C-alpha cells in the first residue's frame, strides 16, 4: 500500500507540478493566470493518442509534434486571449478570455475525439521492471522540465530577459527589452511544458477531454501552495499534493480525498495567500 501511495502519488504529483509550472511561466511573463494550463495538459494526452494510436505515427515524431502543438497553442493563447486584455489587467478580463478559449478547445475535442476516456499507448517498448513507465515517465519529464527552465533562466541571455520582465516588466521595457516577443516566447514554452505533462501523464490519466477541468484545478493547487511564480514551490507543492491525495484516496476513499484537497486549498488561500514559502507584499492604496 505504501509503495502504491508513493509511486502513484509522486507520478501524479509530477503531472500537477508541471501544470503548476505552466501556470507560473505564463504568470511571470504577463501577471495573468491562464485557464489554458489544464487544457494544454488535456491536449497533450489526446493529441498523443491521436497521433500514435489512430494515425500510427512514430513515437518520437509524435512526441515532437505534440510539443510543437503545445507551443502553437501557447502562442495563440497569448495573441488572442491575453494581449488584448493586458491593458486593463485590473478588471481581470483575462480570467474570462482564457477560460472561453480553453472551453472552445475542450468542446472541439469532445466532439471530434469523443467524450469517452480512451487508452494511451505504451511509449517505450520495455517490460515493466521495478517501476512501470507510466510512473517514471512523468517524474522524468518533470525533472527535465525544471532543469531545463533553470538552465535557461541562469545561463542564457534570453532566460535572464525572462527574469527581467517577470521582476519588473515596466523597467525591462524601458531598458529596451522586446517585452511582447519575450511574452510570446514564454507562452510557447508554457505550452510545451503543459503538453509534456499531458503526454507523459496520459498512461495514468488516459486521453480524456474531461482532464482539462481536473488538471486546471489540481494543477493550480501547487501554485497556491508554493507561491505564485515560484517553480520550485510548484514542484514541492505538486509532489506533496499527489502524495496527500493518493494517501487519502487509498485510506479513506476518493470522495474524501477530493474534499480534503479542496479544504486544504481553501485553508491555504485564507491563511497563507502568498503560499507556504512566499512573502506578503504591502497593499497599495
Amino acid at each position: 500500500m505504501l509503495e502504491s501511495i508513493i509511486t502513484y502519488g509522486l507520478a501524479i504529483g509530477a503531472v500537477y507540478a508541471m501544470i503548476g509550472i505552466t501556470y507560473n511561466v505564463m504568470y511571470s511573463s504577463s501577471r495573468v493566470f491562464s485557464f489554458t494550463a489544464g487544457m494544454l495538459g488535456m491536449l497533450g494526452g489526446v493529441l498523443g493518442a491521436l497521433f500514435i494510436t489512430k494515425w500510427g505515427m512514430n513515437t518520437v515524431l509524435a512526441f515532437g509534434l505534440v510539443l510543437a502543438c503545445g507551443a502553437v497553442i501557447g502562442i495563440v493563447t497569448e495573441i488572442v486571449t491575453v494581449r488584448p486584455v493586458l491593458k486593463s489587467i485590473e478588471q481581470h478580463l483575462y480570467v474570462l478570455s482564457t477560460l472561453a478559449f480553453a472551453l472552445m478547445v475542450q468542446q472541439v475535442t469532445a466532439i471530434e475525439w469523443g467524450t469517452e476516456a480512451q487508452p494511451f499507448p505504451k511509449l517505450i517498448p520495455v517490460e515493466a521492471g521495478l517501476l512501470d513507465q507510466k510512473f517514471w515517465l512523468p517524474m522524468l519529464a518533470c525533472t527535465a522540465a525544471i532543469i531545463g527552465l533553470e538552465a535557461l533562466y541562469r545561463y542564457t541571455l534570453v532566460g535572464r530577459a525572462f527574469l527581467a520582465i517577470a521582476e519588473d516588466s515596466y523597467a525591462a521595457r524601458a531598458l529596451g527589452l522586446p517585452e511582447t516577443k519575450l511574452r510570446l516566447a514564454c507562452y510557447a514554452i508554457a505550452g510545451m511544458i503543459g503538453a509534456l505533462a499531458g503526454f507523459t501523464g496520459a498512461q495514468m490519466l488516459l486521453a480524456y477531454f474531461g482532464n482539462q477541468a481536473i488538471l486546471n484545478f489540481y494543477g493550480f493547487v501547487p501554485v497556491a501552495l508554493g507561491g505564485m511564480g515560484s517553480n520550485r514551490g510548484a514542484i514541492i507543492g505538486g509532489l506533496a499534493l499527489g502524495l496527500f491525495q493518493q494517501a487519502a484516496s487509498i485510506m479513506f476513499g476518493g470522495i474524501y480525498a477530493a474534499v480534503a484537497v479542496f479544504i486544504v486549498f481553501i485553508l491555504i488561500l485564507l491563511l497563507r495567500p502568498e503560499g507556504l514559502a512566499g512573502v506578503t507584499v504591502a497593499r497599495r492604496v
Partner: protein
Amino acid sequence: MSDITASMPAASVNGRKRYQKVVPWLLLGAAGLLLPLLDDAYIGVIAQRAFIYWILSAGLNLLVGFAGQIAIGWVPMLTLGAYTTAVLTAGTVTDPWDPYLALLAGGLVGSLFGVIIGLPALRLRTFYFAMTTLGFTTITTQVALAWKSVTGGGVGTPGPVFPWPFDSTWGFYYFCFILAGIATWLTANIAYSRYGRALIALRDAEVAAEASGISKPKLLVLVFLLAGGLGGIAGGLFASLQSYITPDAFTFEMSVLFFIAILIGGRGSIMGPILGTIILTTLPEFAAPLVQWSTFLYAALLLLIVLLIPGGIAELLDFRGRAALPQHREIAPRPELLGAVLGKPDRSQKMSLHGIQLHFGGVKAIDGIDVEIRAGEVHGLIGPNGSGKTTTLNVISGYYRPTAGELRLNGNALPVETTPERAAHRIARTFQTPRLIGDASVLENVMIGGTIDGQASFVESMLSLPRHHQDERALRDAAMKALAAVGLESLADVRADRLQHSELRFMEIARALMLRPAFLLLDEPAAGLSGEEIRRLGALITAISHEGVAVLLVEHHADLIFDICDTVTVLNLGKVLAAGTPAEIRAHKEVVSAYLGA
C-alpha cells in the same frame, strides 16, 4: 432648504422614468402569465427551465454584475440544491421529507456552500475566487459520482414531485414563475438599496468604499448567502423538472451560460441578465442542429464579449449617459448650506499621532511623527514628495498598521482597526486620485459616503420594509444637500466618469461630508484645479472647519496652505521638520531651503 428642492429633478420627469421602468416588467409578467394559453407542453418545459435558470442568475447577478466577483462556477449550488431536495424527498437517508421543506433545505445548503466557497473572495484577488468556484465544480461532480449510497452515483436519483396545486405541468410552471418573480423582487430590492450601491462601490472603488465604512467581508457574506440560497432553490426545482438527476446533468458549461447571460445583460442591470438567461436557455431549443455546438458557441460568445464589449449590451444602449453636458460649467460651492449637511459636530474632538512609525521592510515611510488635529481647525501637512504625507493619512484611515506609535482619539488610544471601523469614528477622507464609480450617477457616488448611517438591515432592504425607504429618502436628501454645498447639484444625475477632474475633487468632498465627519482628511484636493477653483475650495474648507470639523489638509499649493491653515506641520523623509503657525513656517529656514524655496 427651498433652493435645494428646486434644483432637484421635477416630479413629472421622475414619474415618466418610473413608468418607463415598469412597462418592460409588466410585459414580461404578462407574457409569463399568458404563456399557458398556448397549451404547448414542450414550450411549457422550456419555459420552466428558463424560469429555474432565471432564479439562479437573479442571485448570481448580485455577485457578478454588482459585486464584480468572477463566480464562473456557480452551478455547484444548483447541484447541491438538486441533490439535497431529491435525496430528502426520496427518503434515501432519512424518512421522506415534505417536498416543500426539502426545497427549503436545498436553499439552505446552497447558502451554506455559497459562503464556504466565497470565503477566499473576502480577502483575496479575483482570480483565486474564480479558481475556487472552478475547483468546487469539479469536486462536486466527483463527489456526486462517488457517493453512491446517497446520490446513486452515475445511475442517479429520482427528483421530487411537488404536490397539488403544483404537480401538473402548468401548475409547476406557475410555481417556478412565482419563485422567479420573488427572486427578482428580492435581488432588485437589494440592488437598488444602499447595499447594492455598496457592492458596486467595492467593485469599482474599493478603497473609497472602505473609507466610507463599508466592510467588504460582512457585505459579501450576505450576498453569498443570498446567491447560494437562490442557486439551491433553483436546484430543487431543477431536480423536479428533470424527474431523474445524474451528475452529468450539471456541467461546467452550464456555468458559462449563466455567466454570459449576466455579461450580455450588462453589469449593474436587473432586467438585462434575466432576458439574457431566458434567451440563452431557449435559443438552442429552436436551433436543434446546433445543440452539439452550443457550448462552443457560448464560449466563443464569451470571448467576443470580453474582447469587444466588456461593458455588456446595456452599456451600448446607455444613451442617457452620452447626452451632451453643458460646456464651461462652474463649481459654485455654497458654504452656508454646510450646517444642514454636517449637523452639529462635537467641538471638543481632537486626534493626535504619537511617534507613529511605518516601515516597509527597510524603507522607513514614516519615522516617528507627532501631529495633533483639533475640531474647528485646519491643519496643513506639507512636505516634498515621498516625505510621508499620504502615508500618514493612510495610517489614520487604517489602511496601514503602524509599526510603532499610537493614534489617540480624545486622549484614548485607538486599537488596531480596519478602515471601515475607522470610518465609524467619523474619520472621512478624499484621495489623491479621485476614487469614483464611473458608471453610477454623481448622486449615487455621494450617497455611498452615508452608507453607515442607514438603519435598515440587509433583510429589511431585501423585503423593502419601511425603514429601508426611510433610509433611501434620508440618504438621497443628505446627498443632495452635500452636493448643493459643494456646488455640484446640477450634475447630480450625470454619470460620474463624465465629470471634469476638478468636479471630481468636489464630488469626493461631498462624499466625505456624507459621513458627517468629526475629522476630514483631504489629500491634495487642489491638485489640477484652476486658481479661481482653488480660491473657492479654500473658502469651502475654511467653512467646513468653522462648522466644527477637524481638517487635515495635505497640499502642495503653498498659497492655499498659508491662507487657510491654523497650524502647519512640515514633513521631510518621514520625520517632522517643523510645526507651527503659517507665519512661523514661512520664516523657518530649513523649510524654506528644503521645500518652499527662496
